[in-house]
């Protein structure tokens, strides 16, 4: 047993796991929800209800109780929208990129990451809708034929948002779904009752033919190729909501890459959070192993550094550019009434990730849980700090105003977490949150392919002769 733990600490996955065990482990996670699960569902529904109640109130009364006012027309709604959009970038983009690079350690974790993408996108989608003053007319943003010859204004970045988010939602749902079809077939073969019918329908007759696999491989690759530029474009367009405006602090050329990196960052942090939670609650220790966590953390750290750099470069270019209103906004971020949040964002976003430089922390789920949550708090603050200070300070000093969100706004933001949580909770019980067939592939390949992980070699070297026999790369036929 000691040997096994040792192995699990160095290898992405234990290649000795039997395929049947993978199936049973994952299928088990989908059944027999425990008390804790129902509790989580109830909590999520309660949170969602707070949001729904706030929205119903807002629908009837107007945007006023949200404390929105003349300069502060957007505030939390749009910042939380950007936050959720950002969250959505983790799964799909990471999954697609890592897929293209054949980084097979993505396999045990990409499914829930993609689900997270889809659900955070569905959460994000709510915000541009409910932030509308006249929600009941939201369909006017959609380009449909009307005999009055009226179309949406295609020049508006908000319309680009509508296009981009629709495309992205379609794409990520397809990507998630296509990747899940073989697993749905497994579920179908093991289910009874309504689940049987559901999985039979959803697995669209997957039998694991070579023809199906061949098309599947190609399709999955093509989808990944589409999704990478799409994901980048989506967040660039979200950035364009701000960058295309002329407001100081928004009209920044580096916003699109800044947003994309921020999105990846918050997505990675969220993956860590969910990783730890799923690993703990579903006892996925064998699949969501510490080395994978370690790799995810390294990736997060790298992205955090990119994000921090883009942050600094933004400050530098504002300072260097000497555009007074933009400079005022920057100074106000550091010294004004919003400074606690701004400094909090810098701490959470740029300082805290340095903890991920330590291997001990990277492999300590209990520590990573709070850290990753704080990273995301930092990323939420980042979005708030993009929206609010610029609105409070722009060209016309007469309209400068500092404003704090009202209860309706908080209620809806709070509710969005419940909505996301609820979707995710339903997902993990209805769909396999670990890709069974790909873990099988991973195990299969690890068994056969000569293990060339330099890290492992080094590790072996350090260990010396003591445990050499068992540490040799496993070969076939064991």
């Amino acid at each position, binding site marked *: 047993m000691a040997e096994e733990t040792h192995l699990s600490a160095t290898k992405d996955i234990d290649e000795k796991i039997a395929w049947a065990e993978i199936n049973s482990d994952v299928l088990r996670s989908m059944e027999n929800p425990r008390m804790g699960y129902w509790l989580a569902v109830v909590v999520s529904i309660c949170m969602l209800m707070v949001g729904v109640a706030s929205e119903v109130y807002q629908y009837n009364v107007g945007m006023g109780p949200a404390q929105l006012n003349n300069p502060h027309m957007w505030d939390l709604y749009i910042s939380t929208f950007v936050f959720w959009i950002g969250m959505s970038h983790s799964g799909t983009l990471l999954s697609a990129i890592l897929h293209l690079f054949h980084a097979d350690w993505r396999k045990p974790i990409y499914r829930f990451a993609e689900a997270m993408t889809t659900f955070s996108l569905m959460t994000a989608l709510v915000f541009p809708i409910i932030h509308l003053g006249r929600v009941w007319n939201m369909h006017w943003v959609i380009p449909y034929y009307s005999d009055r010859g009226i179309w949406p204004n295609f020049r508006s970045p908000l319309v680009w948002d509508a296009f981009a988010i629709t495309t992205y939602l379609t794409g990520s749902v397809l990507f998630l779904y296509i990747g899940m079809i073989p697993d749905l077939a497994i579920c179908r073969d093991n289910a009874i009752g309504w689940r049987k019918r559901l999985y039979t329908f959803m697995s669209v007759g997957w039998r694991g033919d070579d023809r199906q696999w061949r098309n599947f491989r190609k399709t999955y690759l093509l989808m990944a190729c589409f999704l990478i530029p799409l994901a980048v474009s989506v967040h660039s367009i979200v950035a364009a909501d701000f960058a295309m405006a002329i407001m100081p602090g928004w009209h920044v050329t580096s916003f699109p890459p800044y947003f994309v990196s921020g999105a990846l960052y918050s997505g990675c942090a969220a993956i860590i959070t969910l990783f730890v939670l799923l690993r703990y609650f579903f006892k996925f220790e064998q699949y969501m192993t510490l080395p994978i966590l370690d790799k995810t953390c390294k990736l997060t750290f790298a992205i955090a550094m990119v994000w921090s750099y883009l942050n600094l470069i933004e400050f530098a270019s504002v300072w260097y550019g000497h555009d*007074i209103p933009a400079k005022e906004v920057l100074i106000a971020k550091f010294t004004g009434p919003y400074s606690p949040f701004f400094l909090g964002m810098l701490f959470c976003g740029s300082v805290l990730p340095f903890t991920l430089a330590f291997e001990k922390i990277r492999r300590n789920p209990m520590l990573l849980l709070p850290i990753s949550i704080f990273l995301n708090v930092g990323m939420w603050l980042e979005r708030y700090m993009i929206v609010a200070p610029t609105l409070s300070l722009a060209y*016309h*000093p*007469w*309209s*400068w105003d500092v404003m704090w969100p009202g209860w309706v706004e908080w209620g809806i933001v709070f509710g969005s977490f419940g909505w996301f949580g609820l979707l995710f909770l339903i997902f993990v019980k209805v769909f396999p949150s670990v890709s069974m067939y790909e873990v099988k592939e991973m195990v299969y390949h690890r068994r056969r392919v000569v293990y060339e992980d330099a890290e492992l070699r080094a590790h072996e070297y350090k260990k010396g002769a003591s445990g050499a026999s068992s540490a040799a790369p496993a070969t076939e036929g064991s």
Partner: protein
Amino acid sequence: MSKIEFDRRDFLKVMGVSGVAATVAGCDMPSYITSEEGAEEVIPYLSPEEFVIPGVGVHYASTCLQCPATCGIRGRVREGRVLKLEGNPKSALNTGKLCQMGQAGLQTHYNPDRLTKPLVRKDGALAEATWEDALALIEEKTGPSSGLSGGRFAWLTGTISGHQSVLLKAHLESLGSSSHFVHEVINTRVWQAVCQDMLGQSMPRLRIDKAKMVLSFGADFLGTWMSPIHFSADYARFRSGEDRGMLVQAEPSMSLTGANADLWVALRPGTEGVMALGLANVLINKERMDASALPAAALELINQYGVSRTTKMTGIAGDRLIRIARHLKERSPSLVLAGASAAGHVGGYQSVQAAMLLNILLGNIDQTIEASGDFALPQLASVSGGTSDLSRFADAAGAGKLDAVFFDGSNPLFAAPNHLGLTEKFDSIPFKVAFSQFMDETTAHADVVLPMASALEDWGTHVAAYQGGDHEIAFQQPLMEPIYPGTRSFGDMLLALNSMRNPGSYDGLEDYYGYLQSAVGSIPGVLKGEDDEAINVSAWNRILQDGRLQMPVDTRAFTSNLSMDDMDVRDADPAFPYYLVPTPRGTLYDGRHANIPWLQESPDQISKVVWNSWAEIHPVTAAKLAVEEGDVITVTTPDGVLEVPVYIHKGIHVDVVAVPMGQGHEDYGRYARGRGVNPLKILQPGSDAKTGELALYGSRAALAATGRAGRLIKMGNTETQHGRKIVATITAEQQRRNEGDS
């Protein structure tokens, strides 16, 4: 603007028909839309009135009664409702322009807190009554059978003129009384008295447009002083062209006019006259101006106020005084004005006198101060109000000399300082009748409350106290049917009261409209030719269409009776180191507009505060009190305490705390009630010796921080432009170089 494009003759006809409809209909149900007790009834346009074109607005001329200036207005009427007021271009006074109070006349008219039924006090509380009961009660108390006569009866009104004034006087005469108290907090009585005494005319024409320099001692001629809209147009001409005039304003706290001054001087309150004499001293002694026009006594006095003494008393730097004097000499003709802050002191008369003396020294008489002459029909002339009538009224009421008082157009219980003790004295009067549109403080204490038609529902004629150029009678005609059938015209009431006293004397007249028509007809050469019997209807219609009737001006030259009394500057009481200034503003005015939501939400011109009271203090004072903007301070005078949030700016003298008047209503409808504080209440006793006007600016106060943050709701969150080019400024020199031709 919806331009009416139908025939002129039709239009005149419309005017006439409308007039008849509005008056003959009297208290009948309005023909189109009526709103009675919240129920709205829309009668479809099956058979609209002949002159009503659905969807087309028609303009009717009338007169604005929002302040005593009596500007001409035109109301846009559509589907029987008046929608918008504009200035009447035919009016020489305001030439088509209107101020915010005038614009808001609509909300006085449509105010949801209007009185709609007569009220009679029963068992200590006002209860609804019928008009018959109310009038019967009035007849019982003041009719011929009541035995009331002589000085036991009084009217207390605001500024009143025209035929209402004639009927009111007739009513007083019928009772054998001469007690007509005319109360107006914001007034120019001291100025009028000085002009009357020194020039022989109380209201000379002030040619701001002709002046090259205006030195104003607290005369807020763009905001509240005399006839602000008229002066604003003059001011625009004064400011344009190569002769762009220079405006210097010296006052304790910045008024709207001060905010537009080239040079604004913070003056210690009460030293306006000292500054004027100091300037005269510099002009005579340094600038060698010819002082032969001045009497010897005045010269002697002037010589006492050398630069150093003036500087010491007023707090103005000596070089600045000399510079202002030099400008005054160079920029001739100039004009020196003295307004409320100069007049509102124990020695107010002398201060205004000193300002007038400066005008004489500078040779402005007949240049920028033109003889105006008296109004051709003195019985119609404006009876200008003042605060001295308030104290006289308080004395009379306190001494139990009054048995019955009628009130109209004034709210003395709101405006009277605590020291007059007016509320108790008022309650001691046995019979008080309020002719009122609103349940204001005075109305709430009345025994009989008669709901009046609004200014836009009523007939009347008005004569401005200050006539801009041509003398004219301003005609007030209804712009729509009365909203509430339960209200009655003030003119009709005056007629009824007169008939009550002298039955039969007004028999031939159906109502006030008829009275007006015949009264105007009796003015020679207006409606009738030399020997015509009948009234020329088209001439009458033309008057109504113009809203103005031009009167011949009998210009009378000034008579000169120069005198000069010494200044009466009081020293500070160390216990009350600050001066309390109750600022008049052209927003809520003296408080009468506090029930208008537009004006409550219209940011104050200086502080930009809405919906509340505030105290203006200088940053130095704020530092002493350790308060920041919005913190609540107490303003204490021996007569009371106010708690009010502060607004800090440099447009105020260091030793002054300014609290605007207008708020602090205990009653007066939903928009006014319980909002802010009323600085008039805590003013100290004291009045100008010559005119008896209350020394509104003469109170001393102590300030203390409460440590609480208050609610100061302001529009805008910045005080400066933060280096942006928002309002750019160039020097007058540059402007004169480039804009010679316009």
